[in-house]
């Protein structure tokens, strides 16, 4: 629907966001509040005991009471998650560059990357925890295994789908291999990489939680998964829910931050960042 030329009419803005953006935020928020209200009502009305299903208010209270210890666990889990994501980005992009530099390397190693991806992490985690002495390192390896594949495969596709004419132009202009890589192929692969990164962000959290479950680490540096296990053993169901809420909120936060990053980087040039203008 956008007009030809440079000047698009500026849309009205409310608190810095487009007016058409607000329903995207408000509609799911309202839906969530309604669902929480219905849940609370049902729990009270049918007098469901808290050890079966606690209401949102009870969960909120538990969250507030255990805030300090839960926050400590959240920090532990997020640290593993973000480190794994960072490691996935570095190794994923490096591997993708290697794949796109040589078809032989890609043909030789891609099947094994796929194998690593399709094997459920729960089934390898016990082995990794036995092999790697340091528990933190073992958790990191598990989360990394889950997170790195979308980055490798997306970035490889991105690097291999550079505009043929632009490649010809760079060749014609006598660009070096490095100039072509850093000024053409990597920027052209950016939208693909960012799509992979958004998937990997969620996966690295899942990987970290799964690994924590398998490791069942105790002591003072244990993450949210351990809190859930612990609360389960003690039948403190509200605390299980509180930890669960923190995990899913972290997942949402990771997704939002990566989406924002993607939007900021691509908004002036890529179709995928035009969502708001439809």
């Amino acid at each position: 629907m956008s007009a030809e030329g440079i000047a698009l009419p500026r849309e009205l803005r409310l608190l810095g966001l487009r007016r058409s953006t607000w329903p995207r935020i408000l509609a799911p928020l309202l839906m969530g509040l309604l669902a929480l209200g219905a849940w609370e009502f049902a729990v009270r009305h049918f007098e469901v005991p808290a050890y079966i299903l606690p209401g949102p208010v009870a969960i909120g209270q538990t969250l507030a009471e255990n805030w300090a210890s839960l926050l400590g666990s959240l920090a532990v889990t997020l640290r593993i998650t973000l480190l794994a994501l960072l490691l996935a980005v570095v190794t994923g992009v490096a591997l993708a560059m290697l794949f796109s530099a040589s078809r032989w390397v890609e043909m030789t190693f891609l099947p094994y990357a796929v194998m690593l991806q399709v094997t459920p992490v729960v089934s390898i985690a016990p082995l990794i925890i036995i092999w790697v002495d340091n528990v933190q390192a073992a958790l990191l390896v598990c989360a990394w295994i889950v997170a790195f594949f979308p980055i490798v495969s997306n970035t490889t596709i991105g690097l291999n789908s550079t505009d043929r004419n632009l490649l010809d132009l760079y060749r014609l202009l006598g660009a070096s291999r490095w100039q072509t890589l850093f000024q053409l192929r990597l920027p052209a692969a950016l939208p693909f990489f960012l799509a992979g990164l958004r998937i990997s962000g969620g996966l690295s959290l899942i990987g970290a939680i799964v690994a924590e479950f398998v490791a069942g680490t105790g002591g003072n540096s244990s993450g949210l998964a351990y809190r859930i296990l612990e609360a389960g053993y003690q039948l403190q169901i509200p605390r299980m829910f509180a930890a669960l809420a923190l995990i899913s909120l972290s997942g949402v936060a990771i997704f939002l931050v990566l989406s924002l990053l993607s939007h900021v980087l691509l908004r002036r040039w890529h179709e995928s960042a035009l969502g708001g203008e439809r």
Partner: protein
Amino acid sequence: MSAAHDQGAPGPPLLALRGVSKRYANGTVAVAGVDLGIEAGGFVSLLGPSGCGKSTLLRMIAGLDPPTAGGIAWRGGARPSLGFVFQDPTLMPWRSALDNVALPLRLAHVPKAERHRRAREMLSLVGLADAAGSYPRELSGGMRMRVSIARALVTEPEVLLLDEPFAALDEITRFRLNNDLLRLWGLRRFTAVFVTHSVFESVYLSERVVVMAARPGRLHADIRLDASSHRDEAFRTSPAYAALCRSVSGALEGAMAA
């Protein structure tokens, strides 16, 4: 670069193609035995139906594809500086118009201030001074093609190769860009080799139209047009233009029948 710039003296042409052929790995012969000389400073169109190998020939001249037989020789031995305009604008969508135009200078390690100055100058020459900060997505098709032409000319190349650059544009925009291209040619005096499948465009723009036949791609006719007539909108409706179009059209029909 040893050859002196001899004005008009009959010497070897700037570019000489001898028996140039291109056979693809699957056996298709795209170009067969093309002999062609191109003088410095001229405006030559390669005209032909699709599949006649004219784009392949242009790519071989640019050095993007090696010929499978024959030779391409530049006067003085070394390939002069080239500008290439693709059928699509072929801009980097993540860079502003200014940075797209400055690309050849950037790859040649020209300092930032200098390359921005020259890119700005080139953008205003194609009438896009105000669009320097715009991204390709924010420009119309015609404006993108202007950016593409500005990029090809920013290094002040001796030779400009154009591969059906205006084929995807509407007629009004195409006419305007035709005039812009002629104005730039008058200003910079590069040697232009222009690939097109439009008789009207080839006659309007060039001093010489080389008509090609297809399957395999080969030369069919070499028509020199009267270069003295002034090319402007009045020329487009003149009887002289109509007559030239008729004769080139006839040659093209002959090529299609051949």
